[in-house]
C-alpha cells in the first residue's frame, strides 16, 4: 500500500520537476482550433475553452501546489518547532504566553482562518504560503512542546545540563532531534492538508489566481462546464489533488507504523 503511495508521489514529483522537458505543449498557449476537446490521443486529458492542453496545465499546476505545500510546511515546522521547544523546555510564563497564542490560532477552524489571512494579504503565492503556514504552526508547536516536556526530565537531558551546556544548545542540539520521528509523520500528513487548503482557497477565488495554474483553480474553471457536459476540465485536476493527498496520507501512516508505533491512535 505504502509502496504504491511512494510510487505515486515519485511520479508526481518527477513530473513536476521534469515538466518542461517531458511535455510537448506550452501550458499557456491557446489553440483556437482545438477548444473543448474531449480526451483523445492528441490531448490525453482534453483541452479547455482556449484550446490549452489539460495534461500540461495539470502538471504545471502540480508544481505550484507542491511548492506551496512544501514551503508552507517548512515554515510552519520551523516556527512551530522553535515555539514548541522554547515553550516546552522553559515552561512558566513564556510557556503560558506562547500557548495562548497557539490557542488563539486554533480558536478558528483552520480553513476559515486561512481565508481571512489570504483575504487580508492578497492573492500571491507567497501570501497563500504564509496563510497556510500560520494555520499549521499549532500542529508542530504542540507536538514539539509535548515531546520536549517528555524528554527534558530524562537522564539524557540531565547529563547535558550537568556538563554545562547552554540552554539553547541543549534545546536545539541535543533534545530537538529526538522529536523528529513524530514530526516527520505529522509533516507528511500535513502536506496533504496543505494541498487541500490551497486548492480550496483557489477554488473559491481566494488563493492562486490565473494565469498561474493551480489544481483548485483549474477545477473551478471546469465547474461551469458541467451543465454542458465537458467533464474532463474539472475531473482531472480534482483527481490529481486526491491522488497526491492520498499518497501523502498513506505515506504518513506507513511512516508512523515504522517510526513511532506508540502514536497509533492519533
Amino acid at each position, binding site marked *: 500500500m505504502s509502496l504504491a503511495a511512494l510510487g505515486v508521489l515519485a511520479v508526481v514529483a518527477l513530473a513536476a520537476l521534469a515538466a518542461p522537458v517531458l511535455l510537448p505543449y506550452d501550458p499557456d498557449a491557446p489553440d483556437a482550433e482545438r477548444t473543448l476537446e474531449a480526451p483523445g490521443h492528441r490531448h490525453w486529458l482534453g483541452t479547455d475553452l482556449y484550446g490549452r492542453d489539460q495534461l500540461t496545465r495539470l502538471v504545471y499546476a502540480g508544481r505550484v501546489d507542491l511548492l506551496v505545500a512544501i514551503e508552507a510546511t517548512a515554515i510552519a515546522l520551523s516556527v512551530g518547532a522553535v515555539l514548541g521547544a522554547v515553550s516546552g523546555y522553559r515552561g512558566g510564563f513564556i510557556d503560558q504566553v506562547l500557548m495562548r497564542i497557539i490557542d488563539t490560532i486554533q480558536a478558528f477552524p483552520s480553513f476559515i482562518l486561512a481565508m*481571512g489571512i489570504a*483575504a487580508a494579504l492578497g492573492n500571491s503565492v507567497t501570501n497563500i504560503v504564509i496563510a497556510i503556514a500560520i494555520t499549521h504552526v499549532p500542529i508542530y508547536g504542540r507536538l514539539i512542546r509535548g515531546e520536549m516536556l517528555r524528554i527534558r526530565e530524562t537522564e539524557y537531558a540531565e547529563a547535558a545540563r550537568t556538563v554545562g551546556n547552554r540552554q539553547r544548545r541543549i534545546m536545539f542540539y541535543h533534545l530537538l532531534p529526538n522529536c523528529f520521528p513524530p514530526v516527520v509523520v505529522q509533516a507528511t500528513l500535513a502536506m496533504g492538508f496543505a494541498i487541500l487548503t490551497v486548492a480550496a482557497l483557489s477554488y473559491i477565488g481566494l488563493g492562486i489566481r490565473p494565469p498561474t495554474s493551480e489544481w483548485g483553480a483549474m477545477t473551478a474553471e471546469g465547474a461551469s462546464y458541467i451543465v454542458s457536459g465537458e467533464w474532463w476540465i474539472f475531473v482531472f485536476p480534482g483527481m490529481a489533488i486526491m491522488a497526491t493527498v492520498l499518497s501523502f496520507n*498513506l505515506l504518513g501512516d506507513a511512516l508512523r507504523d515504522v517510526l513511532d508505533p506508540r502514536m497509533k491512535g492519533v
Partner: protein
Amino acid sequence: MFGYIGTRVLLVLPTLLGVTLVTFVLTYVLPGNPALVKAGPLATPEHIAEMERRMGLDQPMAVQYWRYLRGLAHGDLGESHTTGRPVLEDLLQRVPATLELTLAALLVALAVGIPLGVVAAVRRDGWLDHVSRLVGVGGVAMPTFWTGLLALYVFFYALGVAPPPLGRLATGITPPPRVTGLLTVDAVLAMDGRALASALHQLVLPALVLGFSVMAPLTRMVRATMLEVLESDYIKAAWAAGLPRRTVVYGDALRNCMIPVITLLGVVFGFLMAGNVVVESVFSWPGIGNYAVAAMMSKDSGPIQSFVLFVGVVYVFVNLAVDLVYGLVDPRIRLR
C-alpha cells in the same frame, strides 16, 4: 463538576478576546485604505483625511482596537457596499441557509458515520470494515469542492435526479412564511407540501456532499475508539459474566465509545464550517460563506473578516457546549 463548568466558561473570555484581536489585525492589515473605500471614488484628499479622522484611523492601534471592540458590542460589523447594508444584517439574514445545510450535513454524517465506525470495529476485517477504511482514507483525501462537482455531474447532468444548483427552492415555488428560517421546518409548520418537497430536493445533494466530507474523519475516529473499548478489561469482565453479546457490544462498549466521540463533535463542527464555504460556492447556496466569498470577489473586503469573526465566535461557543455536555455525560467528571 462546577469547577469544571466554571473553568471552561472562564476560559472562553480570553479566547473570545483573542479571536477579536486576530480579526482586528486582519482588518487593519487589509490592503487599501478603509477610509478611501468608505469615502467613495470621487472623494478629494481632504475628504479622505476627514474620513480617516472620523474613523479613527489616525489613532494608535490600541485605541483603534478599543473602538473596534466597542463597535462589535453594538453589533457593528461594518457595511457591505455590494448590498449597501450593515454586514451583521446581511449575515443574520443568511445564517438560516447555512444553518439548515450544516444541520442536514451533520445529520448525514452522524447517522451514517457513527454506525459505520461502530460496525467496522465490531466486525473487524469484515467487508463493512474495509468499506469504512476506504471511506475514511479516501474521503479525507477528496477535496470537498470536487466531490460536490462530481455529485452535480453525476446526479444532475448525467442522471437528472438532482435539481440545478440555483438555491434553496426551485424557481416558481414561494417560500413558506418565515418562522425559523429553515425552509424545511417552516414548510412543515405551514403544512406546505410543495415547498417542503422542493426545499428537500434542493437540500439533498449539498447536504450529502458536505456530510460525506466530514464523515470520513468521524468514522475513522469512531472505529479507533470502539476497537480500543472492545479490548478493555471491563468488557472482558462482561463477557466472563455471561452477558449476551447485544448487551456487551451495543450496550456497554458502545456507551463507553460514545463519550469520547462527543469531544469529536467540536472538531467535526470545525470541518463542517470549512466545508460549508466550499459547498455553498459549488451549489450557489445563499449562506454566509457564499456571501463572504462573493463580497470578496467584488473587492468588498469588510464582510469576509466579519464572517471570519462570526465563525470564530460560534466555533468557540460550540466547543464550550461540547465540553459542557461531555462533563455532564461522563460520570468521571460529573462526580468529582
